[in-house]
């Protein structure tokens, strides 16, 4: 029987209600993976003309439908829209190191730049959205990631003692800038999205990357403003953060007001632990550590996934997928096995 997508399943999971059919979810699927599954080169099409972009989204959206998803995961990133950015992932020196840098930074241009860069993609996403599906995601990069992209993580750590006022102001300014983008995004493209999300990796293997008090006073208030805007638009908010963030989870749930959370790594806690801890309050998205998707042979992966689904079902909202994402380096067989096993569990 042909798979019929229905985005209401993932909306239910985001609102922490058990969906009638276990929805599949990925934070990101690399273009190389999509190309291998769809047997079509698409990565370069994003840089092409309107027809190319349309073709890209046609293949991209069809991929999600054919793989059994109810939603198309899609976001464009704030980072590249911020002049001089790149300290987060591109290993360049942060563009803001001093108060003078901060004061002269073209903050007001970021929102316009973002939409100048990406509107064509969101428009094409709308046109190519398959029936019964909506998008999940929205505006990529959270508060902490944007701050790091302009300052650099290590320099940000030094800023804590060298210029605590500047350190604090960075978070508030980014919060203001990101909210401006989100407000316009929700107005112009909210109709194509059923669940909104940003990712903001706050932790590493054993702790948070900055002090928990700073997360509470500097980061979460900015989250709240954006999440309130998403809620005002009538949508649930899915939060993605890697790392050991248990110390601040209560604040992220109670104060920021997230509806659901994604990302799990087995070295920190297996997915059912997250469900056990927070399943009574928020939906939980994820399930299998990306490392396990890369490494496990079929039989072991089936055992792993069956165990996760069994332990995580019956505790409210749950959408299944990798604990992080499916970047291009994930072996295609591992990804295909994961999807096949999950769809098998839901009777397909």
């Amino acid at each position, binding site marked *: 029987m042909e798979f019929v997508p229905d985005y209401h399943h993932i909306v239910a999971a985001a609102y922490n209600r058990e969906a009638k059919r276990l929805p599949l979810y990925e934070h990101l699927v690399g273009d190389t993976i999509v190309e291998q599954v769809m047997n079509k080169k698409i990565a370069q099409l994003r840089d092409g003309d309107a027809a190319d972009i349309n073709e890209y989204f046609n293949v991209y959206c069809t991929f999600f439908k054919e793989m059994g998803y109810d939603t198309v995961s899609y976001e464009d990133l704030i980072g590249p829209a911020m002049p001089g950015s790149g300290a987060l992932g591109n290993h360049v020196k942060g563009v803001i190191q001093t108060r003078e840098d901060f004061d002269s930074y073209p903050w007001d241009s970021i929102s316009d730049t973002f939409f100048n860069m990406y509107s064509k993609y969101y428009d094409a996403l709308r046109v190519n959205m398959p029936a019964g599906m909506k998008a999940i995601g929205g505006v990529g990069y959270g508060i902490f990631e944007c701050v790091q992209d302009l300052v650099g993580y*290590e320099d940000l750590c*030094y800023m804590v*003692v060298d210029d605590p006022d500047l350190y604090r102001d960075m978070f508030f300014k980014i919060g203001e800038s990101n909210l401006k983008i989100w407000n316009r995004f929700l107005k112009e493209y909210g109709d194509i999205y059923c669940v909104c999300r940003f990712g903001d990796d706050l932790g*590493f293997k054993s702790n948070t990357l900055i*002090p*928990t008090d700073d997360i509470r006073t500097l980061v979460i208030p900015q989250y709240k403003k954006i999440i309130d805007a998403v809620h005002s638009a009538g949508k649930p908010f899915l939060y993605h953060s890697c790392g050991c963030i248990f110390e601040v989870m209560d604040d992220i749930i109670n104060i920021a007001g997230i509806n659901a959370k994604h990302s799990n790594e087995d070295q920190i806690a297996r997915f059912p632990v997250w469900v056990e801890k927070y399943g009574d309050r928020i939906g939980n998205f994820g399930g299998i550590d990306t490392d396990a998707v890369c490494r496990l042979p079929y039989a072991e992966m089936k055992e792993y996934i069956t165990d996760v689904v069994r332990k995580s079902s019956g505790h409210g909202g749950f959408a299944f997928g990798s604990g992080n994402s499916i970047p291009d380096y994930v072996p295609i067989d591992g990804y295909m096995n994961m999807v096949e096993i999950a769809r098998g569990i839901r009777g397909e």
Partner: protein
Amino acid sequence: MSIFNEISENLQKGKAKTVKELVQQAINEGYPAKQILEEGLLVGMGVVGEKFKNNDVFVPEVLVAARAMNIGAALLKPLLMEAGVEASGRVCIGTVKGDLHDIGKNLVKMMMEGKGLEVVDLGTDVPPEKFIETAQEQGCQIICCSALLTTTMGMMEEVVALADKAGIRDNIKIMVGGAPVTESFCRKIGADKYSADAASAADAAVEICKTLIIEQEERGSL
């Protein structure tokens, strides 16, 4: 409060300027550089490392403390060399080939330096051969490999294989760490030591260096 305690306390608070002044004061007062290093700087960094291991402080506190230590240590370095004081061991560290992530690696480096080890930083995207060559050329007791990605951690196995091939495993131990790396992975590839966090890695490195140096001295005296 002794000047060493003052150095330690200020280092823990990341007060680089004060640490520098205090170290200079201690030098002027005639204290041996080794004593200033061991009883002031390394004691302070040891406290920070222990707190980090117990999640009592966060990465920023470690980084600013390490910066303060390095500024103080820079004043001592020529005096230590003059006095013939050697580091308690030498480590070459790097993020493996194909991987550009360096925060974890840098943190381990700082923690190791905070334990009095000399660390040769090879940076990121380091080919296996480079680890082996450097360790041999610079007389390192430890090769320390870091990786953030599932796909790059496999490079650690190549480092181990090359070290085997070079016949250096008796004298040089291989440590591994990073987000996807586990104890079982360490055993599987035949590396010598896995550490879950930067402070534990530094503790382990000190022990390994101590053991290897004693073994080497014993072999030399036979």
